[in-house]
C-alpha cells in the first residue's frame, strides 16, 4: 500500500513497519513447540481408542513397562477424576507411555493390550439431546467448570446438553404470518480443521506443587485454571515456546488428551515429559469447528423491509464440553441482529454432547456458521421476492447509534455501508467480463456481509488486559503483555503502538511474548480477536503513563510545565526547543503500567464480493475474483491487515467449497493432510483485492479494532452466493464441492 512508508522519526502506526519476527523465521532460527527439547526429557505416546464410545474393561501394561527405556506406563484409571472409565470419542485416551526415546515409546505402545466393551454411541446433535439417546457424559462439568445455568424445561432438549440459549423480541410467529415474502430453509455446516502446521506439543514438568507446561497456548489463564481444576492443589504455569505456531483458535485451550496426560506421566516419573499430537491426532483429538444444523426463517414486506428472523441452531460439541459451545450459540444468537434491523426475532440454540471428535475454537466461532446460513438465506429470499440483492442487504442493516437488541450497548461503527460502497466499486473494476465464448463455463457473482466482535466482553463479562512498559537506561523499551504472536504480528503491531505513543524509535522497542513471571493480568491472552484491540489499548495506556512520568521527570531539566512537554524522537521536548534525552531521565529503569477493562465487544464488519467460474460439465468451481472490503477501525500495519484478510479468504474458501473432516459413526475417514482437502495456491482467487476501511473505533488504540475473525464470516457466503448466481442452484450444505455442483446440475437437467 502506498503512503504507508516510514516517517522521519521511525516507524509509526498506520505504516508497514517490518515484522520483528520475520528475520529469524525466514532464516530458519525460529523454534516452535514441536522443536522443544529439554535435558532429561522423556518422550511420550498415547494408546487411543479406535471406537467412538466404549467402556475400558481392562488394560495390560506389564509387557510395555518391561520394554527397555520405558519410565512409566499409565492407564485411563490414572488420569484425574472425571475422565472415568469410558472412552467417548475416536482418539480418546486408553493408556500412555513415557520413555527415553521415541522408538521405545512406539515399542511400548504396541505392547499394551486392552479390552473395550462397545457402547451405543450418538453422532447427530439433534438426536443426542433427545430422551432416547445414549448418555455420553455423566459429568460434563469435569471438562468445563464455568457454565451458566441452562433452562431447558419444555424445550425437548432432555440430555447431552452442553449449552442452550434462547432469545426473542417482537412476535416472530406473527411477523412471519404477516410477511409478504417468506423463506424457510435448513443449512448444514461442516466440521473443518485449522490444520495448523506446528502440531500440538507440550513439555510438562512438576516442581513440587507447580505444574509447568510449555506449549503454544492462546488463552493461558483459562488453561492454567483448567489444569488446576484437574490437578487440585497445584499451581499451573503456562510458558510459551520461543516461537508460537499459528492458532486460529486451535491453540486456545488445554486438550484433554494432551497436557493432562503428559502431566500424569511427568508426575509419575518426576521428569519432564514431552507429548505431541501426530497429524491424525491433531485432526481428531483437538477442537475442530462445530458442525451445525441451522434452520432459518425470514420474512419481508413487499417493499423489501426485513421484519422477521427466526434462527434455530443445533451444534455438535463432541463429548467433552469446553465452553466453546456457549460461544457458538451466543454468536449465532447475537450476530444476525447486530447487523440486521428486524422487528421480530426468535433464536433458539442447543450445543449437544455427542460421541464425535471434539469441537473447539476456530476463527469466527459460531459467527462463520450462522453468517453463511443467514447470508445465503437472505440472498435467496431476495431472489425469490425479486429484490435487488445488494440493496436488500443495505437497506436492512442497523444504523449506528441504535441499540443492540440482544447484546448490550449501541452499534458504534457504521462499517458495513462504507465497506459496501468501496467493495462494490473495486469489484466492478476488477471482475471479469467474460465474452461468453466458452459456453461450458458460466460466471456468477455474489456478495455477503458479516460482522464479528473483538474480545469476549459483555455486560456479564468484563474483559481486562494489562501491559507493562519498561524503559531501560539506554533508552530501549520492552513491552510485557498477555499476548503471544501466533503469526498475526502482535510483536510488531504492539511495538508500533508503543513507538507511536512514546516517540521511542520502533527499532528500540521489543515486545516480549507472554511470560508467567511478568506479573500482569490479562484475562484471555491472544484469542477472540482481542490482541490489537484490547492488549494494544493496554499498551497505549501504559505508554501514556510512561510519557507522563517522563514529562514530570523532565521538568527538572527543562524550563517548562510537564503539560507543555512532548515525548518524541527519543527525547522530551519543551516548546522553546530545549530537550533532554530519555536516557538522562532513567536511572535504572522506568516501569509504566496500563490497564483497560471493557464490557462491550466491539463489532467489525466486512462486505465481500466473489466471482466464480463454474465449468458446468464437470462442476469444477473456481473463485476467480474476490474483493474483501473490511472495516478494521484503523490499520496499525496495513500490509499485515491485508495478510489477515487474505488468510481469512483461504479458510473461507475451504469452508465454502473444499474441506470437511468426514466422520462415519464418529470414526474419521480423512484425518490426514493427503486425504483432507487443504487448499493450495491454485484454489485462491486469481485476483484478490483488499479494501481496508477505517471507521475509527474510539475505544481502540488509534481507532483500531480486531481483524482476524471479522474477516472470515463474509467469505463462504459470498462464494456460495456467486455459485447460486452462476448455476441457479442454492446449496444449503457446505462445503459445496465440484461434485455437488455437477450432480445438482445433472439433476436439474433431468
Amino acid at each position, binding site marked *: 500500500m502506498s503512503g504507508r512508508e516510514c516517517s522521519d522519526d521511525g516507524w509509526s502506526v498506520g505504516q508497514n513497519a517490518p515484522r520483528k519476527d520475520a528475520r529469524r523465521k525466514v532464516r530458519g532460527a525460529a523454534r516452535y513447540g514441536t522443536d522443544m527439547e529439554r535435558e532429561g526429557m522423556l518422550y511420550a505416546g498415547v494408546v487411543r481408542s479406535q471406537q467412538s464410545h466404549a467402556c475400558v474393561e481392562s488394560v495390560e501394561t506389564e509387557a510395555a513397562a518391561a520394554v527397555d527405556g520405558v519410565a512409566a506406563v499409565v492407564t485411563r484409571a490414572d488420569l484425574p477424576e472425571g475422565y472415568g472409565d469410558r472412552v467417548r470419542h475416536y482418539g480418546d485416551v486408553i493408556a500412555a507411555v513415557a520413555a527415553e*526415546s521415541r522408538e521405545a515409546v512406539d*515399542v511400548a505402545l504396541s505392547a499394551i493390550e486392552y479390552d473395550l466393551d462397545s457402547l451405543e454411541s450418538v453422532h447427530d446433535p439433534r438426536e443426542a439431546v433427545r430422551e432416547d439417546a445414549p448418555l455420553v457424559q455423566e459429568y460434563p462439568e469435569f471438562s468445563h467448570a464455568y457454565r451458566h445455568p441452562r433452562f431447558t424445561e419444555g424445550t425437548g432438549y432432555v440430555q447431552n446438553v452442553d449449552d442452550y440459549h434462547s432469545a426473542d423480541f417482537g412476535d416472530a410467529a406473527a411477523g412471519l404470518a404477516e410477511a409478504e415474502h417468506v423463506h424457510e430453509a435448513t443449512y448444514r455446516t461442516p466440521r473443518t480443521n485449522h490444520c495448523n502446521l506446528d502440531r500440538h506439543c507440550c513439555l510438562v514438568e512438576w516442581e513440587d506443587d507447580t505444574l509447568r507446561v510449555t506449549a503454544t497456548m492462546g488463552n493461558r489463564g483459562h488453561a492454567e485454571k483448567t489444569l488446576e481444576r484437574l490437578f487440585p492443589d497445584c499451581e499451573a504455569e503456562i510458558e510459551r515456546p520461543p516461537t508460537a505456531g499459528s492458532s486460529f483458535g486451535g491453540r486456545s485451550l488445554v486438550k484433554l488428551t494432551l497436557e493432562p496426560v503428559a502431566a500424569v506421566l511427568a508426575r509419575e516419573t518426576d521428569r519432564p515429559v514431552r507429548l505431541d499430537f501426530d497429524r491424525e491426532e491433531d485432526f481428531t483429538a483437538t477442537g475442530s469447528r462445530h458442525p451445525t444444523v441451522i434452520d432459518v426463517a425470514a420474512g419481508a414486506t413487499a417493499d423489501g423491509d426485513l421484519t422477521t428472523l427466526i434462527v434455530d441452531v443445533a451444534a455438535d460439541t463432541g463429548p467433552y464440553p469446553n465452553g466453546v459451545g456457549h460461544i457458538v450459540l451466543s454468536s449465532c444468537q447475537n450476530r444476525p441482529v447486530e447487523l440486521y434491523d428486524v422487528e421480530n426475532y426468535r433464536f433458539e440454540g442447543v450445543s449437544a454432547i455427542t460421541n464425535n471428535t471434539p469441537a473447539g475454537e476456530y476463527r469466527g466461532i459460531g459467527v462463520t456458521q450462522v453468517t453463511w446460513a443467514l447470508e445465503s438465506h437472505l440472498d435467496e429470499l431476495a431472489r425469490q421476492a425479486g429484490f435487488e440483492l445488494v440493496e436488500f442487504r443495505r437497506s436492512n442493516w442497523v444504523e449506528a447509534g441504535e441499540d443492540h437488541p440482544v447484546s448490550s450497548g449501541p452499534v458504534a461503527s457504521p462499517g458495513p455501508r462504507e465497506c459496501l460502497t468501496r467493495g462494490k466499486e473495486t469489484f466492478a473494476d476488477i471482475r471479469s467480463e467474460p465474452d461468453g465464448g466458452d459456453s461450458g463455463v458460466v460466471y456468477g457473482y455474489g456478495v455477503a456481509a458479516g460482522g464479528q466482535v473483538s474480545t469476549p466482553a459483555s455486560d456479564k463479562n468484563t474483559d481486562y488486559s494489562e501491559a507493562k512498559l519498561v524503559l531501560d537506561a539506554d533508552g530501549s523499551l520492552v513491552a510485557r503483555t498477555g499476548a503471544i504472536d501466533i503469526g498475526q504480528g502482535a510483536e510488531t503491531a504492539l511495538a508500533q503502538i508503543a513507538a507511536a505513543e512514546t516517540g521511542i524509535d520502533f527499532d528500540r522497542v521489543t515486545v516480549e511474548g507472554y511470560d508467567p513471571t511478568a506479573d500482569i493480568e490479562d484475562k484471555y491472552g491472544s484469542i477472540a480477536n482481542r490482541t490489537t484491540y484490547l492488549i494494544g489499548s493496554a499498551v497505549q495506556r501504559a505508554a501514556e503513563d510512561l510519557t507522563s512520568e517522563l514529562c514530570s521527570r523532565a521538568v527538572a531539566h527543562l524550563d517548562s510545565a510537564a503539560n507543555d512537554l512532548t515525548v518524541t524522537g527519543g527525547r522530551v521536548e519543551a516548546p522553546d526547543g530545549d530537550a533532554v534525552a530519555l536516557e538522562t531521565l532513567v536511572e535504572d529503569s522506568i516501569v509504566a503500567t496500563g490497564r483497560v477493562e471493557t464490557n462491550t465487544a466491539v463489532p467489525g464488519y466486512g462486505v465481500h464480493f466473489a466471482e466464480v467460474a463454474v465449468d458446468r460439465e464437470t462442476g*469444477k468451481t473456481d473463485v476467480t475474483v474476490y474483493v474483501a472490503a473490511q472495516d478494521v477501525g484503523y490499520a496499525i500495519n496495513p500490509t499485515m491487515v491485508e495478510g489477515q484478510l487474505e488468510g481469512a479468504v483461504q479458510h473461507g474458501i475451504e469452508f465454502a467449497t473444499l474441506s470437511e473432516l468426514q466422520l462415519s459413526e464418529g470414526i474419521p*475417514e480423512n484425518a490426514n493432510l493427503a486425504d483432507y482437502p487443504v487448499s493450495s495456491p491454485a484454489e485462491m482467487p486469481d485476483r484478490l483485492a483488499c479494501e481496508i476501511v477505517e471507521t475509527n473505533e474510539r475505544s481502540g488504540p488509534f481507532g483500531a479494532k480486531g481483524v482476524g475473525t471479522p474477516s472470515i464470516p463474509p467469505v463462504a457466503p459470498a462464494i456460495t452466493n456467486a455459485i447460486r448466481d452462476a448455476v441457479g442452484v442454492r446449496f444449503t450444505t457446505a462445503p459445496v464441492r465440484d*461434485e455437488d455442483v455437477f450432480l445438482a446440475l445433472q439433476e436439474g437437467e433431468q
Partner: protein
Amino acid sequence: MSGERATPDYFAPESVADARRRLAEEEGFVKVVAGGQTLMLLFRQGFVQADALVDVSRLPELSGLSTGDGRARVGATTTYADLAAHEVADRVTMLGEACNGIADRQVRNAGTIGGALCHADPAFDIVPPLLCLDAEVSIASEDGHRRLPLSAFLVGHMRTDLGPDELLEGVAFDLPAPEQSGSAYEKHAAVDDGWTTVGAATLVTVSDGTFFDVRVGLTAVADTAVRSPAVESALVGNPVTEDAIEAASEEVIADIDPLDDLSGSAEYKRGLAGTLVARSLATATDRAGGDL
C-alpha cells in the same frame, strides 16, 4: 524387551543380477526401494515393515531415458521430473501433461516411473498415457528378461505380475509418428496436489479427415487404469467432427467401473469420464492437425 525396533538390512547392489540375487536369498519381507515417495509413507504409517531393503535407485541398468529407432525406453528409476523434462514429453504431449499434474514438484523430483508402475495405484496419472502407447514393461527374471504389455502387468488393485524375485527394468513404447498424431491428458482433482478424481489420456491419428487410430486410457475408474475399446471402436473410421467425438465419448461407460472413495462418488466419476474423454480427444485431435 528391547526398546528399539528391528532395523531392516540394507543392500545397494551394483547390478541387476546382484539385486535379483538379494531378492531371492534374503529372508523375510524384502522391499525394493526406488524413489521412496510411496514407500516412506507406507513405513511411517505402519503398513509395511520390511526385513530387508534392496535399493535400486542408483543401478545404472535401470536408469536412463532414450529414444531411437522410433522407440522410447524409460528406465525404471527415471523420475517424473526427468521424464517431464525430456523431449519425449513434448513430443508425446499427454506424457508431459500427465507428469506435470502428478502430486507436486518435490514428489516429481524423487518419484520414479518404475516405482509408480510397481505400486499400481489405480488412480496414478502416469498409467493411462502409457496404456495408450501400448507400452511394454521389461522385467529382469530367472531366464534373463521377459517382456509383457503394461496392461497385462497390471493385474488388479495394487497388484502386478511381478514375481517375488523379479525386478522391473523399465517400460518402452513406440513413438507415435509426429505428423497427423496428437495426444492430450485431462483430469479432474478437487485440489491441486490432491487425488485425481478421473483422468483421461487420448492419442489420436487422423488421416484424410477421418480418425485413423484412436487410443483412450483412463485412471481412477476401475481397479487398474484401463483402455476404452468402446470409445476407440466408436471413433475409428469416423469423420473428424465434434459430434463424432461427443457420441463416441459417451461409450466410455461400458469400460469403467468406478467406486465411491474420498476423491468422489462413483456417480460423479461416471459423469466426469465421458466429458474428460471428449475434451481430451478434442485437444488431441486438434494437435493431430484435425479440423474440428
